[in-house]
Protein backbone atom coordinates (compact mmCIF):
# COMPACT_ATOMS: atom_id res chain seq x y z
CA UNK A 1 0.00 0.00 0.00
CA UNK A 2 1.26 3.40 -0.82
CA UNK A 3 1.77 5.47 2.31
CA UNK A 4 -0.45 8.53 2.13
CA UNK A 5 2.65 10.73 2.45
CA UNK A 6 1.38 14.14 3.34
CA UNK A 7 2.27 16.82 0.88
CA UNK A 8 4.73 19.27 2.30
CA UNK A 9 2.65 21.52 4.53
CA UNK A 10 3.66 25.09 5.32
CA UNK A 11 4.95 23.87 8.69
CA UNK A 12 6.94 21.18 6.96
CA UNK A 13 8.39 23.66 4.53
CA UNK A 14 9.46 26.00 7.33
CA UNK A 15 11.04 23.06 9.15
CA UNK A 16 13.01 21.94 6.12
CA UNK A 17 14.16 25.50 5.39
CA UNK A 18 15.22 25.91 9.01
CA UNK A 19 17.30 22.77 8.99
CA UNK A 20 18.71 23.52 5.57
CA UNK A 21 19.65 27.02 6.65
CA UNK A 22 21.25 25.76 9.83
CA UNK A 23 23.35 23.17 8.02
CA UNK A 24 24.29 25.63 5.30
CA UNK A 25 25.53 28.26 7.77
CA UNK A 26 27.52 25.59 9.57
CA UNK A 27 29.18 24.53 6.34
CA UNK A 28 29.84 28.13 5.30
CA UNK A 29 31.47 28.93 8.64
CA UNK A 30 33.82 25.94 8.38
CA UNK A 31 34.51 26.65 4.72
CA UNK A 32 35.33 30.27 5.62
CA UNK A 33 37.86 29.18 8.26
CA UNK A 34 39.45 26.73 5.84
CA UNK A 35 39.94 29.05 2.88
CA UNK A 36 40.93 31.97 5.09
CA UNK A 37 43.71 29.79 6.49
CA UNK A 38 45.31 30.01 3.01
CA UNK A 39 45.18 33.82 2.77
CA UNK A 40 47.73 36.39 3.82
CA UNK A 41 46.77 38.67 6.69
CA UNK A 42 46.86 41.69 4.38
CA UNK A 43 44.33 40.02 2.10
CA UNK A 44 42.23 39.03 5.09
CA UNK A 45 42.09 42.54 6.51
CA UNK A 46 41.27 43.94 3.06
CA UNK A 47 38.31 41.61 2.74
CA UNK A 48 36.90 39.07 5.17
CA UNK A 49 34.91 37.22 2.55
CA UNK A 50 37.24 37.14 -0.45
CA UNK A 51 38.78 33.86 -1.56
CA UNK A 52 42.58 33.59 -1.33
CA UNK A 53 44.58 34.83 -4.31
CA UNK A 54 46.99 31.95 -3.93
CA UNK A 55 47.19 29.07 -1.49
CA UNK A 56 49.65 30.11 1.16
CA UNK A 57 50.79 26.86 2.72
CA UNK A 58 53.29 28.94 4.69
CA UNK A 59 50.49 29.66 7.15
CA UNK A 60 50.43 25.98 7.98
CA UNK A 61 54.16 25.69 8.45
CA UNK A 62 54.06 28.84 10.59
CA UNK A 63 51.26 27.41 12.75
CA UNK A 64 52.92 24.01 12.95
CA UNK A 65 56.45 25.18 13.76
CA UNK A 66 56.57 28.80 14.95
CA UNK A 67 53.27 28.74 16.81
CA UNK A 68 54.19 25.33 18.26
CA UNK A 69 51.00 23.57 17.11
CA UNK A 70 53.12 20.64 15.92
CA UNK A 71 54.66 20.34 19.35
CA UNK A 72 51.24 20.50 21.03
CA UNK A 73 50.00 17.91 18.56
CA UNK A 74 52.58 15.37 19.72
CA UNK A 75 51.95 16.20 23.38
CA UNK A 76 48.22 15.70 22.87
CA UNK A 77 48.70 12.50 20.86
CA UNK A 78 50.78 10.68 23.43
CA UNK A 79 48.81 11.97 26.43
CA UNK A 80 45.58 10.90 24.73
CA UNK A 81 46.84 7.43 23.83
CA UNK A 82 48.27 6.68 27.27
CA UNK A 83 45.19 8.04 29.06
CA UNK A 84 42.83 6.05 26.86
CA UNK A 85 44.73 2.79 27.30
CA UNK A 86 44.99 3.39 31.05
CA UNK A 87 41.32 4.26 31.47
CA UNK A 88 39.98 1.37 29.45
CA UNK A 89 42.28 -1.20 31.09
CA UNK A 90 41.42 -0.16 34.64
CA UNK A 91 37.73 0.45 33.91
CA UNK A 92 37.29 -2.94 32.20
CA UNK A 93 38.68 -4.81 35.22
CA UNK A 94 36.47 -2.90 37.65
CA UNK A 95 33.44 -3.26 35.38
CA UNK A 96 33.95 -7.03 35.06
CA UNK A 97 33.91 -7.45 38.84
CA UNK A 98 30.94 -5.11 39.23
CA UNK A 99 29.00 -6.95 36.54
CA UNK A 100 29.81 -10.57 37.30
CA UNK A 101 30.83 -11.03 40.92
CA UNK A 102 28.22 -11.00 43.64
CA UNK A 103 29.49 -9.30 46.76
CA UNK A 104 27.97 -7.04 49.36
CA UNK A 105 28.14 -3.31 48.57
CA UNK A 106 28.38 -4.05 44.87
CA UNK A 107 25.61 -1.61 43.94
CA UNK A 108 26.99 0.94 46.37
CA UNK A 109 30.46 0.85 44.80
CA UNK A 110 28.88 1.15 41.35
CA UNK A 111 26.98 4.28 42.39
CA UNK A 112 30.04 5.77 44.07
CA UNK A 113 31.70 5.70 40.66
CA UNK A 114 28.62 6.99 38.85
CA UNK A 115 28.13 9.93 41.22
CA UNK A 116 31.11 11.66 39.60
CA UNK A 117 29.09 12.07 36.42
CA UNK A 118 26.71 14.43 38.25
CA UNK A 119 29.28 16.59 40.03
CA UNK A 120 30.64 19.75 38.40
CA UNK A 121 34.47 19.92 38.49
CA UNK A 122 34.18 23.42 39.98
CA UNK A 123 33.08 21.75 43.21
CA UNK A 124 36.37 19.96 43.87
CA UNK A 125 38.76 21.95 41.68
CA UNK A 126 40.66 23.77 44.43
CA UNK A 127 41.21 20.90 46.89
CA UNK A 128 42.26 18.74 43.96
CA UNK A 129 44.71 21.34 42.72
CA UNK A 130 46.23 21.83 46.18
CA UNK A 131 46.51 18.10 46.68
CA UNK A 132 48.14 17.57 43.29
CA UNK A 133 50.60 20.36 44.01
CA UNK A 134 51.61 18.52 47.17
CA UNK A 135 52.04 15.36 45.10
CA UNK A 136 54.20 17.28 42.57
CA UNK A 137 51.68 16.43 39.87
CA UNK A 138 50.91 19.94 38.64
CA UNK A 139 52.63 21.19 35.51
CA UNK A 140 53.46 17.62 34.55
CA UNK A 141 52.20 15.33 31.84
CA UNK A 142 52.25 12.36 34.18
CA UNK A 143 49.97 14.21 36.59
CA UNK A 144 47.62 15.14 33.78
CA UNK A 145 47.49 11.57 32.45
CA UNK A 146 46.74 10.11 35.89
CA UNK A 147 44.01 12.69 36.44
CA UNK A 148 42.56 11.95 32.99
CA UNK A 149 42.44 8.25 33.80
CA UNK A 150 40.65 8.93 37.09
CA UNK A 151 38.29 11.25 35.21
CA UNK A 152 37.50 8.77 32.45
CA UNK A 153 36.66 5.93 34.84
CA UNK A 154 33.03 6.69 35.82
CA UNK A 155 31.66 6.85 32.28
CA UNK A 156 33.76 3.88 31.15
CA UNK A 157 32.82 1.72 34.12
CA UNK A 158 29.17 2.62 33.60
CA UNK A 159 29.13 1.56 29.94
CA UNK A 160 31.35 -1.50 30.34
CA UNK A 161 29.45 -2.85 33.35
CA UNK A 162 26.31 -2.76 31.25
CA UNK A 163 28.17 -4.48 28.46
CA UNK A 164 29.60 -7.29 30.62
CA UNK A 165 26.15 -7.89 32.12
CA UNK A 166 24.73 -8.42 28.67
CA UNK A 167 27.22 -11.19 27.79
CA UNK A 168 26.16 -14.85 28.12
CA UNK A 169 27.58 -16.79 31.10
CA UNK A 170 28.01 -20.18 29.40
CA UNK A 171 31.49 -19.60 28.05
CA UNK A 172 32.72 -18.42 31.41
CA UNK A 173 31.29 -21.53 33.06
CA UNK A 174 32.84 -23.80 30.46
CA UNK A 175 36.21 -22.18 31.00
CA UNK A 176 36.05 -22.75 34.74
CA UNK A 177 35.04 -26.38 34.25
CA UNK A 178 38.10 -26.79 32.02
CA UNK A 179 40.17 -25.60 34.95
CA UNK A 180 40.97 -22.05 33.83
CA UNK A 181 41.86 -19.55 36.52
CA UNK A 182 39.63 -16.47 36.90
CA UNK A 183 42.42 -14.35 35.42
CA UNK A 184 42.70 -16.59 32.34
CA UNK A 185 38.95 -16.54 31.90
CA UNK A 186 38.90 -12.78 32.02
CA UNK A 187 41.85 -12.29 29.71
CA UNK A 188 41.18 -15.04 27.14
CA UNK A 189 37.38 -15.29 27.11
CA UNK A 190 35.66 -12.25 28.52
CA UNK A 191 37.82 -9.45 27.15
CA UNK A 192 37.62 -10.68 23.55
CA UNK A 193 33.85 -11.05 23.94
CA UNK A 194 33.64 -7.50 25.24
CA UNK A 195 35.55 -6.10 22.31
CA UNK A 196 32.73 -4.03 20.77
CA UNK A 197 32.12 -2.37 24.13
CA UNK A 198 35.83 -1.76 24.66
CA UNK A 199 36.13 -0.15 21.25
CA UNK A 200 33.16 2.16 21.84
CA UNK A 201 34.51 3.24 25.22
CA UNK A 202 37.99 3.76 23.75
CA UNK A 203 36.65 6.00 20.99
CA UNK A 204 34.74 8.13 23.47
CA UNK A 205 37.66 8.46 25.84
CA UNK A 206 39.97 9.24 22.96
CA UNK A 207 37.77 12.09 21.74
CA UNK A 208 37.29 13.39 25.28
CA UNK A 209 41.02 13.41 26.08
CA UNK A 210 41.97 14.82 22.69
CA UNK A 211 39.65 17.80 23.24
CA UNK A 212 40.09 18.21 26.98
CA UNK A 213 40.66 21.81 28.00
CA UNK A 214 39.64 22.40 31.60
CA UNK A 215 42.21 20.30 33.46
CA UNK A 216 45.03 21.20 31.10
CA UNK A 217 44.21 24.86 31.83
CA UNK A 218 44.36 24.19 35.55
CA UNK A 219 47.42 21.95 35.61
CA UNK A 220 49.77 23.08 32.82
CA UNK A 221 51.70 26.31 33.18
CA UNK A 222 54.75 25.88 30.96
CA UNK A 223 54.16 26.50 27.25
CA UNK A 224 56.13 23.50 26.07
CA UNK A 225 53.84 21.17 28.03
CA UNK A 226 50.63 22.49 26.47
CA UNK A 227 48.09 20.30 24.73
CA UNK A 228 46.33 21.36 21.52
CA UNK A 229 43.28 22.81 23.26
CA UNK A 230 45.42 24.79 25.70
CA UNK A 231 47.81 25.93 22.97
CA UNK A 232 45.04 27.04 20.65
CA UNK A 233 43.42 29.02 23.46
CA UNK A 234 46.70 30.85 24.16
CA UNK A 235 47.17 31.55 20.47
CA UNK A 236 43.66 32.98 20.26
CA UNK A 237 44.15 35.17 23.31
CA UNK A 238 47.39 36.50 21.81
CA UNK A 239 45.52 37.70 18.72
CA UNK A 240 44.76 41.03 20.39
CA UNK A 241 48.47 41.87 20.27
CA UNK A 242 49.64 39.72 17.35
CA UNK A 243 46.92 39.77 14.69
CA UNK A 244 48.18 36.73 12.81
CA UNK A 245 44.62 35.59 12.13
CA UNK A 246 45.21 33.48 9.05
CA UNK A 247 47.91 31.51 10.86
CA UNK A 248 45.50 31.06 13.76
CA UNK A 249 42.95 29.66 11.31
CA UNK A 250 45.58 27.28 9.92
CA UNK A 251 46.11 26.10 13.49
CA UNK A 252 42.36 25.74 13.93
CA UNK A 253 42.15 23.53 10.85
CA UNK A 254 45.04 21.37 12.09
CA UNK A 255 43.20 20.86 15.39
CA UNK A 256 39.82 20.12 13.76
CA UNK A 257 40.94 17.88 10.95
CA UNK A 258 41.84 14.68 12.85
CA UNK A 259 38.43 14.64 14.56
CA UNK A 260 36.55 15.31 11.35
CA UNK A 261 38.41 12.40 9.73
CA UNK A 262 37.75 10.13 12.71
CA UNK A 263 34.08 11.04 12.53
CA UNK A 264 33.84 10.39 8.78
CA UNK A 265 35.34 6.94 9.34
CA UNK A 266 33.37 6.07 12.47
CA UNK A 267 30.11 8.00 12.18
CA UNK A 268 27.76 5.09 12.90
CA UNK A 269 29.85 3.69 15.71
CA UNK A 270 30.05 7.07 17.44
CA UNK A 271 26.36 7.92 17.16
CA UNK A 272 25.39 4.42 18.33
CA UNK A 273 27.82 4.57 21.22
CA UNK A 274 26.37 7.87 22.31
CA UNK A 275 22.92 6.33 22.51
CA UNK A 276 24.16 3.43 24.62
CA UNK A 277 26.09 5.74 26.94
CA UNK A 278 23.40 8.30 27.60
CA UNK A 279 20.01 6.69 27.43
CA UNK A 280 20.69 3.61 29.54
CA UNK A 281 21.17 5.84 32.58
Amino acid sequence: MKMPRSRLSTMGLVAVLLMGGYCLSSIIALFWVTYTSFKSNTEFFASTWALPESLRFENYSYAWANAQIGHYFFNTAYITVLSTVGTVTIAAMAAYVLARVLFPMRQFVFYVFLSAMMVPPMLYLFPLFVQMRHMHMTNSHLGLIILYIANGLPFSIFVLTGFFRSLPTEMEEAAFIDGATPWQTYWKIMLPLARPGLITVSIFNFIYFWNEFFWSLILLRTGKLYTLARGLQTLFWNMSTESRWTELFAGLVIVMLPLIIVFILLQDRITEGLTVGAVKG
Partner: protein
Amino acid sequence: MIQKQLRKLIWPFLLPALVLHTVFFIVPVINSFYYSLTSWSGISLEKQFVGLANYVRAFTDHTFIMGLENVLLFGVLGFVLVFPLALLFAVILNRKPPAARFLKFVVFAPTLLSVVVTAVLWGSIYNPVIGLLNESLRTLGLEAWSRPWLGSRHNALPAITVAMVWQGLGTYVILFLAGMQKIPVSYYESAELDGANGRQQFWHVTLPLLWDVVQILVILWIIGAFQAFALIFVITRGYPNVIEVLGTYIYWAGFQGQAIGYASAMGVIMFLMALTFSLVVNRLMKRETIQY
Protein backbone atom coordinates in the same frame (compact mmCIF):
# COMPACT_ATOMS: atom_id res chain seq x y z
CA MET B 1 31.28 -22.54 42.67
CA ILE B 2 32.06 -20.09 39.93
CA GLN B 3 31.34 -17.21 42.27
CA LYS B 4 33.92 -18.59 44.70
CA GLN B 5 36.50 -18.51 41.93
CA LEU B 6 35.44 -15.08 40.75
CA ARG B 7 35.61 -13.59 44.23
CA LYS B 8 39.40 -13.84 44.08
CA LEU B 9 39.26 -11.08 41.48
CA ILE B 10 37.42 -8.51 43.59
CA TRP B 11 40.37 -6.77 45.21
CA PRO B 12 42.99 -6.93 42.46
CA PHE B 13 40.47 -5.82 39.81
CA LEU B 14 38.62 -3.19 41.78
CA LEU B 15 41.52 -1.65 43.67
CA PRO B 16 43.19 0.44 40.93
CA ALA B 17 39.90 2.08 39.98
CA LEU B 18 38.89 2.61 43.60
CA VAL B 19 42.21 4.16 44.57
CA LEU B 20 42.17 6.60 41.64
CA HIS B 21 38.54 7.48 42.20
CA THR B 22 39.12 8.06 45.91
CA VAL B 23 42.28 10.13 45.57
CA PHE B 24 41.18 12.25 42.61
CA PHE B 25 37.47 12.56 43.28
CA ILE B 26 36.11 11.56 46.68
CA VAL B 27 38.83 13.13 48.84
CA PRO B 28 38.79 16.49 47.01
CA VAL B 29 34.99 16.57 47.12
CA ILE B 30 35.03 16.08 50.89
CA ASN B 31 37.86 18.59 51.29
CA SER B 32 35.90 21.11 49.29
CA PHE B 33 33.15 21.19 51.91
CA TYR B 34 35.83 21.65 54.55
CA TYR B 35 37.63 24.44 52.62
CA SER B 36 34.33 26.21 52.13
CA LEU B 37 34.09 26.72 55.89
CA THR B 38 37.49 28.43 56.10
CA SER B 39 38.91 31.75 54.97
CA TRP B 40 41.95 30.07 53.43
CA SER B 41 43.78 32.15 50.81
CA GLY B 42 45.62 29.18 49.32
CA ILE B 43 49.01 30.34 50.53
CA SER B 44 49.01 30.60 54.32
CA LEU B 45 49.65 27.44 56.27
CA GLU B 46 46.72 27.89 58.58
CA LYS B 47 43.13 27.48 57.52
CA GLN B 48 40.98 29.65 59.73
CA PHE B 49 37.52 28.30 60.40
CA VAL B 50 34.82 30.86 59.63
CA GLY B 51 31.66 28.76 59.71
CA LEU B 52 29.09 29.68 57.10
CA ALA B 53 30.49 33.18 56.51
CA ASN B 54 31.54 32.33 52.93
CA TYR B 55 28.02 31.20 52.10
CA VAL B 56 26.52 34.38 53.52
CA ARG B 57 29.08 36.40 51.58
CA ALA B 58 28.15 34.73 48.30
CA PHE B 59 24.52 35.74 48.52
CA THR B 60 25.44 39.35 49.21
CA ASP B 61 28.13 39.39 46.50
CA HIS B 62 26.92 41.37 43.52
CA THR B 63 29.15 39.52 41.03
CA PHE B 64 28.08 36.11 42.30
CA ILE B 65 24.41 37.00 41.93
CA MET B 66 25.12 38.34 38.45
CA GLY B 67 26.95 35.11 37.57
CA LEU B 68 24.00 33.10 38.80
CA GLU B 69 21.63 35.29 36.81
CA ASN B 70 23.71 34.77 33.67
CA VAL B 71 23.77 31.01 34.21
CA LEU B 72 19.97 31.03 34.36
CA LEU B 73 19.70 33.30 31.30
CA PHE B 74 22.08 31.14 29.25
CA GLY B 75 20.32 28.03 30.50
CA VAL B 76 16.82 29.21 29.61
CA LEU B 77 17.78 30.88 26.34
CA GLY B 78 19.75 27.84 25.21
CA PHE B 79 16.97 25.50 26.27
CA VAL B 80 14.40 27.43 24.27
CA LEU B 81 16.61 27.07 21.20
CA VAL B 82 18.06 23.59 21.65
CA PHE B 83 14.99 21.54 22.52
CA PRO B 84 12.61 22.67 19.74
CA LEU B 85 15.42 22.64 17.17
CA ALA B 86 16.68 19.23 18.22
CA LEU B 87 13.17 17.74 18.19
CA LEU B 88 12.46 19.30 14.81
CA PHE B 89 15.71 18.07 13.25
CA ALA B 90 15.17 14.61 14.73
CA VAL B 91 11.65 14.49 13.25
CA ILE B 92 13.02 15.47 9.84
CA LEU B 93 15.88 12.95 10.03
CA ASN B 94 13.47 10.25 11.19
CA ARG B 95 11.56 10.59 7.91
CA LYS B 96 14.74 9.61 6.08
CA PRO B 97 15.17 12.69 3.90
CA PRO B 98 17.64 12.62 1.01
CA ALA B 99 21.23 12.93 2.22
CA ALA B 100 20.19 12.03 5.80
CA ARG B 101 23.67 10.74 6.59
CA PHE B 102 25.28 13.95 5.45
CA LEU B 103 22.80 16.12 7.38
CA LYS B 104 23.42 14.07 10.51
CA PHE B 105 27.11 14.55 9.98
CA VAL B 106 26.81 18.33 9.70
CA VAL B 107 24.57 18.63 12.76
CA PHE B 108 26.63 16.29 14.91
CA ALA B 109 30.21 17.16 13.90
CA PRO B 110 30.46 20.33 16.06
CA THR B 111 29.78 18.22 19.13
CA LEU B 112 33.02 16.34 18.55
CA LEU B 113 35.14 19.46 18.30
CA SER B 114 37.00 20.80 21.30
CA VAL B 115 35.19 23.57 23.12
CA VAL B 116 38.26 25.70 22.37
CA VAL B 117 37.72 25.21 18.63
CA THR B 118 34.12 26.35 19.01
CA ALA B 119 35.20 29.37 21.04
CA VAL B 120 37.91 30.39 18.56
CA LEU B 121 35.61 29.85 15.57
CA TRP B 122 32.72 31.86 17.00
CA GLY B 123 35.05 34.37 18.57
CA SER B 124 36.36 35.06 15.07
CA ILE B 125 32.89 35.18 13.55
CA TYR B 126 31.88 37.78 16.15
CA ASN B 127 35.10 39.80 15.89
CA PRO B 128 34.13 43.44 15.30
CA VAL B 129 36.91 44.10 12.76
CA ILE B 130 37.41 40.97 10.69
CA GLY B 131 34.40 38.96 11.85
CA LEU B 132 32.20 37.13 9.39
CA LEU B 133 28.97 38.29 10.99
CA ASN B 134 29.47 42.07 10.89
CA GLU B 135 31.00 41.82 7.43
CA SER B 136 27.99 39.88 6.15
CA LEU B 137 25.58 42.35 7.70
CA ARG B 138 27.45 45.18 5.97
CA THR B 139 27.29 43.36 2.64
CA LEU B 140 23.56 42.86 3.06
CA GLY B 141 23.09 46.56 3.79
CA LEU B 142 22.21 45.88 7.41
CA GLU B 143 25.13 47.86 8.74
CA ALA B 144 22.97 49.24 11.54
CA TRP B 145 22.75 45.73 12.98
CA SER B 146 26.48 45.22 13.17
CA ARG B 147 28.03 45.67 16.60
CA PRO B 148 30.84 44.43 18.84
CA TRP B 149 29.07 41.18 19.62
CA LEU B 150 31.25 40.24 22.56
CA GLY B 151 31.67 43.80 23.82
CA SER B 152 28.78 44.00 26.26
CA ARG B 153 26.66 41.66 28.30
CA HIS B 154 23.59 42.64 26.32
CA ASN B 155 25.05 41.41 23.00
CA ALA B 156 27.26 38.66 24.36
CA LEU B 157 24.37 36.79 25.91
CA PRO B 158 22.59 35.84 22.65
CA ALA B 159 25.89 35.62 20.73
CA ILE B 160 27.46 33.10 23.11
CA THR B 161 24.18 31.20 23.40
CA VAL B 162 24.25 30.61 19.64
CA ALA B 163 27.79 29.21 19.91
CA MET B 164 26.67 26.94 22.77
CA VAL B 165 23.70 25.71 20.80
CA TRP B 166 25.89 25.04 17.76
CA GLN B 167 28.24 22.91 19.82
CA GLY B 168 25.61 21.12 21.89
CA LEU B 169 22.75 20.50 19.48
CA GLY B 170 24.15 17.34 17.84
CA THR B 171 23.98 15.21 20.97
CA TYR B 172 20.34 16.12 21.52
CA VAL B 173 19.37 15.44 17.90
CA ILE B 174 21.05 12.02 17.92
CA LEU B 175 19.45 11.00 21.21
CA PHE B 176 15.98 12.21 20.21
CA LEU B 177 16.36 10.43 16.89
CA ALA B 178 17.39 7.19 18.59
CA GLY B 179 14.31 7.48 20.82
CA MET B 180 12.03 8.11 17.85
CA GLN B 181 13.38 5.15 15.95
CA LYS B 182 12.24 2.87 18.77
CA ILE B 183 8.60 3.89 18.36
CA PRO B 184 6.81 1.19 16.34
CA VAL B 185 5.67 2.30 12.89
CA SER B 186 2.26 0.70 13.50
CA TYR B 187 1.45 3.50 16.00
CA TYR B 188 1.79 6.06 13.26
CA GLU B 189 -0.16 3.92 10.84
CA SER B 190 -3.12 3.69 13.17
CA ALA B 191 -2.88 7.38 14.00
CA GLU B 192 -2.95 8.05 10.29
CA LEU B 193 -6.02 5.84 9.87
CA ASP B 194 -7.70 7.86 12.59
CA GLY B 195 -7.00 10.92 10.48
CA ALA B 196 -4.25 12.48 12.61
CA ASN B 197 -2.05 14.87 10.67
CA GLY B 198 1.70 15.25 11.11
CA ARG B 199 1.45 17.78 13.89
CA GLN B 200 -1.12 15.76 15.83
CA GLN B 201 1.01 12.65 15.42
CA PHE B 202 3.96 14.52 16.92
CA TRP B 203 2.02 15.77 19.96
CA HIS B 204 0.02 12.61 20.63
CA VAL B 205 2.35 9.81 19.58
CA THR B 206 5.96 10.94 19.30
CA LEU B 207 6.30 13.27 22.28
CA PRO B 208 4.54 11.10 24.90
CA LEU B 209 6.56 8.06 23.87
CA LEU B 210 9.74 10.11 23.89
CA TRP B 211 9.12 11.54 27.35
CA ASP B 212 11.80 9.42 29.10
CA VAL B 213 14.45 10.72 26.72
CA VAL B 214 13.23 14.29 27.10
CA GLN B 215 13.48 13.95 30.87
CA ILE B 216 17.07 12.68 30.77
CA LEU B 217 18.13 15.38 28.35
CA VAL B 218 16.55 18.18 30.39
CA ILE B 219 18.59 17.05 33.41
CA LEU B 220 21.70 16.86 31.22
CA TRP B 221 20.99 20.39 30.05
CA ILE B 222 20.54 21.76 33.58
CA ILE B 223 23.78 20.23 34.84
CA GLY B 224 25.60 21.50 31.76
CA ALA B 225 24.18 25.01 32.14
CA PHE B 226 25.40 25.34 35.72
CA GLN B 227 28.85 24.11 34.75
CA ALA B 228 29.23 26.54 31.84
CA PHE B 229 32.82 27.69 31.85
CA ALA B 230 35.22 26.85 29.05
CA LEU B 231 33.37 28.36 26.10
CA ILE B 232 32.70 31.65 27.88
CA PHE B 233 36.17 31.73 29.40
CA VAL B 234 37.94 31.30 26.05
CA ILE B 235 35.63 33.39 23.88
CA THR B 236 35.79 36.44 26.19
CA ARG B 237 39.58 36.10 26.20
CA GLY B 238 39.97 36.48 29.92
CA TYR B 239 37.98 39.70 30.18
CA PRO B 240 35.48 38.36 32.65
CA ASN B 241 33.76 41.69 33.19
CA VAL B 242 31.92 41.38 29.85
CA ILE B 243 29.86 38.44 30.95
CA GLU B 244 30.50 36.37 34.02
CA VAL B 245 28.95 33.02 34.88
CA LEU B 246 29.36 31.06 38.11
CA GLY B 247 32.14 28.95 36.61
CA THR B 248 34.31 31.85 35.46
CA TYR B 249 33.77 33.78 38.69
CA ILE B 250 34.74 30.78 40.83
CA TYR B 251 37.84 30.22 38.69
CA TRP B 252 39.02 33.84 38.97
CA ALA B 253 38.17 34.08 42.66
CA GLY B 254 40.27 31.02 43.39
CA PHE B 255 43.25 31.49 41.12
CA GLN B 256 43.53 35.27 40.86
CA GLY B 257 41.74 36.50 43.95
CA GLN B 258 43.37 33.87 46.14
CA ALA B 259 40.16 33.24 47.98
CA ILE B 260 40.22 29.45 47.96
CA GLY B 261 37.81 29.16 50.87
CA TYR B 262 35.30 31.49 49.28
CA ALA B 263 35.68 29.93 45.83
CA SER B 264 35.09 26.47 47.32
CA ALA B 265 31.94 27.69 49.02
CA MET B 266 30.66 29.01 45.69
CA GLY B 267 31.51 25.64 44.12
CA VAL B 268 29.43 23.91 46.77
CA ILE B 269 26.53 26.30 46.14
CA MET B 270 26.77 25.64 42.40
CA PHE B 271 26.64 21.90 42.98
CA LEU B 272 23.72 22.08 45.41
CA MET B 273 21.76 24.35 43.09
CA ALA B 274 22.32 22.12 40.06
CA LEU B 275 21.27 19.12 42.13
CA THR B 276 18.13 20.81 43.51
CA PHE B 277 17.11 22.11 40.11
CA SER B 278 17.55 18.67 38.56
CA LEU B 279 15.54 16.96 41.28
CA VAL B 280 12.71 19.50 41.14
CA VAL B 281 12.50 19.41 37.35
CA ASN B 282 12.69 15.63 37.38
CA ARG B 283 9.78 15.60 39.82
CA LEU B 284 7.74 18.05 37.76
CA MET B 285 8.29 16.09 34.57
CA LYS B 286 7.40 12.75 36.11
CA ARG B 287 4.63 10.94 34.31
CA GLU B 288 3.61 7.38 34.17
CA THR B 289 5.97 5.60 31.86
CA ILE B 290 4.20 4.38 28.80
CA GLN B 291 4.92 0.76 28.00
CA TYR B 292 4.94 -0.30 24.41
